[in-house]
């Protein structure tokens, strides 16, 4: 049985970070069979985080972010071809070019795409961008280099904030419009979002919160936008940063448990079918998956995190070529980072899974701090600002379900460390930006209303 698993045919649909790392891991685990990786983009796997950082800053070009490989995956790369469906009974992946690929085991790593501006006509105006792909970044970077009068960023989540930060660093005027009360509030809650708002404004961003963009104007080319408070922003570039949409449409008729929240799978990355029965030959990893996590009440988590894509892909690959008793659960604690306005923000755990928080080290005034989040008396997350060397300590508290507030004793602990304050995580439906961590288990309907 074990030997059978090391051979046969494996198809991976999705040729980005998770797909690549899974392919490498499969070979590392001794898989000797045929391996095919299908990707709808015409490029070999490339890295996306630099697109909103190095590339927008003009320090790298969008066509140089290919991911280095750790080992030769000896795979057939079917790039520039979209998968259109899967036949679970015949065990075949259907491709847009009419071909179908037989598989013994299938891994789905189709990830997400940028949520488009809801009005297609307005979205089609020249100068209106989203930022997800290499082409998006190349186009936006070119426009920024040309020196626009003003850039409008819609949505102040991590991506929107990083774009605004890069624009300011390049000396460009920026307006950020966010429906929620402050930037990053959806991911980090009230306290840090106030610091984020200060950072935006101190760096010269025209930050508008509590507003929505009601229309994008222009005759062929974008010239400005109408806001819900009646004001108008004159700008010649618009970046729509409203979060991500999971690439699941191609599975609509597959019988898998795939919906806008992602593809549900178990802790071993095995996909559920629509009846909630776990499959044994279809696996899921990366942004497109949602999976139960024991540290967070077994809620189904869906994470848009670089580190999760790598770790989950490796667990999936391991489990695809090992028999049941040797399979591993994907239990890694989520970690996320963002660099913006000169600050390095790192998060471990799930800050939105919280009711209270304390500032455990440093201070908001110093722009250097560690914030610990708790839910019902235990530690569930921590966020550091320019204090990443403490993160492992807090990760350990999360992994061990340590009591909240966390034990005292840090040398740079402020007086406020003893005073938990509400974490103020808002209802996602009041935000422009989609959260990058979503608890999709208990309140699915609420999640579905996010636009």
């Amino acid at each position, binding site marked *: 049985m074990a030997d059978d698993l090391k051979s046969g045919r494996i198809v991976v649909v999705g040729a980005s970070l998770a797909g*690549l790392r899974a392919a490498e891991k499969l070979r590392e685990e001794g898989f000797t069979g045929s391996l095919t990786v299908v990707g709808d983009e015409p490029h*070999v*796997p*490339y*890295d996306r*985080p*630099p697109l909103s*950082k*190095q590339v927008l*800053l003009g*320090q*790298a070009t969008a066509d*140089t*972010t*290919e*991911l*280095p*490989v*750790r080992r*030769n*995956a*000896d*795979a*057939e*790369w079917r*790039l520039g071809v979209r998968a259109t469906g899967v036949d679970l009974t015949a065990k075949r992946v259907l491709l847009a070019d009419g071909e179908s690929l037989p598989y013994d085991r299938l891994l789905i790593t189709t990830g997400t795409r940028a949520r488009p501006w809801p009005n297609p006509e307005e979205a089609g105006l020249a100068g209106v961008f989203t930022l997800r792909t290499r082409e998006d970044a190349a186009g936006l970077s070119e426009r920024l280099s040309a020196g626009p009068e003003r850039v409008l960023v819609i949505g102040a989540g991590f991506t929107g904030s990083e774009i605004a930060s890069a624009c300011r660093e390049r000396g460009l005027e920026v307006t950020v419009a966010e429906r929620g009360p402050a930037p990053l509030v959806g991911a980090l809650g009230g306290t840090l979002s106030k610091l984020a708002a200060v950072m935006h404004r101190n760096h010269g961003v025209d930050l508008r919160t509590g507003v929505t963009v009601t229309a994008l104007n222009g005759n062929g080319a974008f010239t400005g936008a109408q806001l819900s408070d009646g004001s108008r922003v004159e700008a010649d570039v618009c970046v729509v940063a409203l979060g991500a949409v999971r690439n699941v449409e191609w599975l609509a008729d597959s019988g898998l448990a795939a919906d806008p929240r992602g593809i549900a799978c178990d802790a071993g990355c095995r996909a559920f079918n629509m009846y909630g029965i776990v499959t044994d030959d279809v696996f899921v990893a990366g942004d497109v998956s949602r999976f139960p996590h024991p540290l967070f009440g077994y809620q189904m988590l869906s994470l848009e*995190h*670089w*580190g999760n894509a*790598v770790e989950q892909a490796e667990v999936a690959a391991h489990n695809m070529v090992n028999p049941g008793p040797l399979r591993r659960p994907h239990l890694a604690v989520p*970690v*996320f*980072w963002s*660099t913006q306005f*000169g*600050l*390095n923000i790192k998060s471990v755990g799930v800050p939105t899974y919280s009711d209270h928080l304390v500032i455990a080290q440093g201070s908001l005034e110093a722009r*250097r701090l560690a914030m610990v989040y708790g839910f019902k008396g235990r530690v569930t997350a921590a966020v550091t600002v*320019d*204090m*990443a*060397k403490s*993160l*492992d300590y807090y990760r350990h508290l999360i992994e061990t379900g340590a009591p909240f507030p966390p034990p005292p004793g840090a040398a740079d602990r402020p007086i406020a460390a003893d005073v938990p304050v509400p974490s103020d995580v808002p209802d996602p439906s009041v935000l422009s930006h989609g959260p990058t961590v979503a608890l999709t288990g208990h309140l699915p309907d609420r999640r579905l209303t996010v636009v």
Partner: protein
Amino acid sequence: MRTVVDLTRCQGYAQCVFLAPEMFELHGEEGLLYATAVPDDQVERVRQAAAACPVQAILLGEEVSPDGR
């Protein structure tokens, strides 16, 4: 050659910046920016940076070659 830094692991020790300052840069006090494309004359320095990284977060290598498998 291409490089990628696992910023999930990175703790901002900046050892890479000391050893290959043209390829790695501190952005603020702790954030790291890096050159994704490594020119030939910088490969040795990036190798040194990768070996020195206290959290082993730097990967240097060739990209996937779709035809050469």
